[in-house]
């Protein structure tokens, strides 16, 4: 379980806040989507969970313990992270990228090799074809699968995903969204997934938290946010695509 209790973050000593008074909870085995437009504070929120950014105020608990009281390196190894810009290491093969954290954690070699095979198969990249390649020899979608495999490598209970599919074309994104749902069913991870894509949020999220200018607007299941928008912002957010969708149907 991940819990945020009155968390705020200011980068300029309190003159303005990227995130203000944020409180919510992510239950075990749940995908919570942080939805909002760019600059709303969703990436900042995500990075505070594994201490890439430290909160100005409030408490963040992972596994029932304040993250500020946990050693950052050990904390990060317990939380998988998939980066917006993928962030694979260009000088390492796919195999090495995925194996990096397990080997730094001192896993036995054979266990690492098995784990890499297992993960590459899980993300549909046959190891015999892909293990020895370098990131720049892969397409964007394939690289993002490797990013996911790397985040899962040390079998963390938590996964943070920062717009992992943002840069991909619609078709590839669709395939990977399905893949992610499959994996979630198989692996039972607790996931925070950041996106600005409303349809992605509705498809993937067990619950959706809508952020606007650093403030939490509403948190709830898709039915809840669609049927009873808590603020005007949330209402407008869903109204516009709904209208577009209706127009699209008319054309068809």
């Amino acid at each position, binding site marked *: 379980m991940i819990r945020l209790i009155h968390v705020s973050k200011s980068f300029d000593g309190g003159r303005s806040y990227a995130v203000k008074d944020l409180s919510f909870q992510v239950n075990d085995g749940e995908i919570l989507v942080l939805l909002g437009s760019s600059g709303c504070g969703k990436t900042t929120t995500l990075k505070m969970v*594994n201490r*890439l950014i430290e909160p100005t105020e409030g408490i963040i608990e992972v596994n029932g313990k304040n993250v500020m009281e946990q050693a950052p390196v050990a904390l*990060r190894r317990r939380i*998988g*992270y998939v980066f917006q810009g993928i*962030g694979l*290491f260009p000088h390492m*093969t796919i195999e090495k990228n995925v194996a*990096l954290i397990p080997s730094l954690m001192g896993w036995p070699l054979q266990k690492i090799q098995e784990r890499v095979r297992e993960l590459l198969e899980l993300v549909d990249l046959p190891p015999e074809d892909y293990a020895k390649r370098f990131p720049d020899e892969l397409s964007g979608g394939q690289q993002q699968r490797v990013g996911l495999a790397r985040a899962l490598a040390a079998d963390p209970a938590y996964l943070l995903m920062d717009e992992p599919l943002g840069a991909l074309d619609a078709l590839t994104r669709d395939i990977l969204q399905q893949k992610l749902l499959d994996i979630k069913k198989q692996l039972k991870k607790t996931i925070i997934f950041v996106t600005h894509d409303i349809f992605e949020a509705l498809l993937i999220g067990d619950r959706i938290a809508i952020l606007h200018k650093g403030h939490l607007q509403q948190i709830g299941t898709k039915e809840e946010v669609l049927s009873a928008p808590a603020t005007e912002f949330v209402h407008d957010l869903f109204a516009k695509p709904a209208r577009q969708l209706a127009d699209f149907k008319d054309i068809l």
Partner: protein
Amino acid sequence: MSLESLTTYIVNRLPELWLRTGEHIMLTGFSTGTAILIGIPLGIIIFRNAWLRAPVMAVIGILQTIPSLAMLVFLLALLQKIGALPALIALTLYALLPIVRNTLTGLKGVSPQVIEAATGIGMTKYQRLKLVRIPLAASVIIAGIRTAAVVGVGIATLSAFIGAGGLGQFINRGLALYDTKLILLGAVPTALLALIVDFSIGAFEWGFRPERKKDKKGLVKSLVRPLALMMPLLLIMTAGILSYFTRPLSGIQTEAVSKTSTRTIRIATKNFTEQLILGEIMAQLIEARTDLFVERYFNLGGTMICHNALVHGQIDLYAEYIGTGLTVILKYPVISDPEEALSQVREAYKKRFNARWLKPFGFNNTYAITVRTADAKSYGWTRISDIQKAAPRLRAGFTAEFTERPDGYPGLRQIYGLRFGEIRDLDPAIMYEAVSKGEVDVICAFVTDGRIAAYNLKSLEDDRQFFPPYHAAPVIRGEILEEHKKLRDVLALLEGLLDNATMQSLNFKVDGKGYSPAQVAGAFLKSQGLL
């Protein structure tokens, strides 16, 4: 020169060419290697401590701006040692800048996204440096090493000035003898070597790069890669083998200058023709008349270098001029009487340096203020005093030493009131030609130089007896003379043997007719029945 004689010219010098090439690679290789061992850690340290960057880069940058020759001479004075050590230190200091700078640039240049990913998945600071930053900076760092090594090959030619060997010896000798062929014999292999070094480090970089799956595979390729990786090592090994096998051909050593057996005598010369001939005469005579083995440290870059080397036991013997010993080394006032001057230097050298002045060779190689004969005739110049009025309109070409020595231009100004309109520093090898071609009007010729007559020049009489006597004599370390008492008698055979005319003709055989100093010295000794 015909192709055939060019081939013979090179073939005759091939053994020495190999030796010098080997030495050159060793000098560059060792200094670049040391610079890598210091520079990369230093680059990493200043990367991690940003406040150190500006001061460290400033110091290294300043080192880079010191002219190479000045650096060598400074280190020479500091270490009181000629040979490989000061050269290696100087070359290492020069190699530092590109290596440290590229290490810093490479480490800074790693994309922040990649670093954030490394942090985010739980790598420690050290792991990020070791596993991410350094590998990603490697190609930039290697590029820095490549620059350092190629520049090093060039700078290493200057090490010959302080007796460290290398291809610069040919260039140096060529400059001293004004011999273009010799200069090219040093310069062309140096340029080729620079290309080879550049290529081999380039190959290393290619071999070092991780292999891509899409790269074409094949037996040849899989062999070429490790080979490419080994290129710099192979080059250094080749050099090691070269210098090991060619060493016995010549007495000059790159390493461990001071390690010499008691059966060796080390003879040095300054870097001009007369010195080279005197050095050869003494060397060949000693080789013929004793069972000592002679090591030649020829072409050292000036009076102070020879003198310091002698005082610190790096060399045993060289020919010095009384006036130079008196004014430049002992800083005594000018004494015109040769006997008196010699007894003064003899006594002072014995007391202060434990060095002995032996019997002079005979000639007095004094400076001579020299002009074109045509000018002397048309203006009626015969004595130095005669040009005093004309001086402000005249351009003088002096050796760098003469411009500063108390028995040179400063004294000349005082005694004769000469104020030349323009002073140009010229190498002794080219000043005769420069005055004959009208590029300057007055030079400080050496009386024994054959080119005074050959270029139709006129030396003016020193009517106020300003110049001290410059009789040359062997100067030898006291300990060596004690150890090998025979040397005194052997070198005494040369006493008074070379008068001004003889020395002038010997010099001209080298400068004008293109014989080597060794040939001229040998022929002279034979003609005197000494060989």
